[in-house]
């Protein structure tokens, strides 16, 4: 069965650089969620999209932005990267936001 695809799997950036993370949801899932998991921490909700519109917002810094495209894939754009942005970034998808969320493998971002 198709799963959530995230790219890249690993990313190394320097401080003040920008990064773009991509998420391809499971086919026919119209809702995408982004989570950030720091070392030794639980996943923290960042933002979600339903039918290409932002549906919920969590602890996403102003330096980050995200969008969902017409094919339902989503991109998380991160600018002016800081060392504290180093984390695992998970994308999850669900059909309509009413079911269980299925997580991708994550993108490990390292900011040096």
């Amino acid at each position, binding site marked *: 069965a198709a799963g959530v695809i995230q790219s890249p799997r690993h990313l190394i950036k320097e401080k003040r650089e920008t990064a773009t993370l991509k998420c391809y949801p499971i086919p026919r899932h119209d809702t995408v969620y982004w*989570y950030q998991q720091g070392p030794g921490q639980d996943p923290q909700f960042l933002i979600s999209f339903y039918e290409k519109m932002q549906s*919920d917002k969590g602890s996403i810094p102003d330096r980050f932005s995200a969008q969902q495209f017409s094919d339902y894939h989503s991109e998380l754009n991160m600018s002016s990267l800081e060392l504290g942005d180093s984390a695992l970034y998970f994308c999850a998808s*669900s059909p309509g936001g009413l079911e269980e*969320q299925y997580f991708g493998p994550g993108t490990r971002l390292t900011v040096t």
Partner: protein
Amino acid sequence: DQQVKQNSPSLSVQEGRISILNCDYTNSMFDYFLWYKKYPAEGPTFLISISSIKDKNEDGRFTVFLNKSAKHLSLHIVPSQPGDSAVYFCAAKGGATSGTYKYIFGTGTRLKVLA
């Protein structure tokens, strides 16, 4: 302000015995609860869920119990197997009335099943 808490950061259980993982929450608006299992460097994998209208849901070796009055849920794994060794997260979701579908995760419990 941690709305979903897992007070045991780690748990060791002998193979074949029961593993019980606990989770407490504070927000009475949560109406759907889930348990996820996570291996290192992988995304969380959905295990089992329970709606707030139920008090028990069973799926194979996994059973989730919900005590709404105590705002407590638990995951029972019987019998425990070495492959169950992972970090387990409970997560809670607010329903339509709360206007949000995001998950709030607990801090995780690392389960180690000893052979």
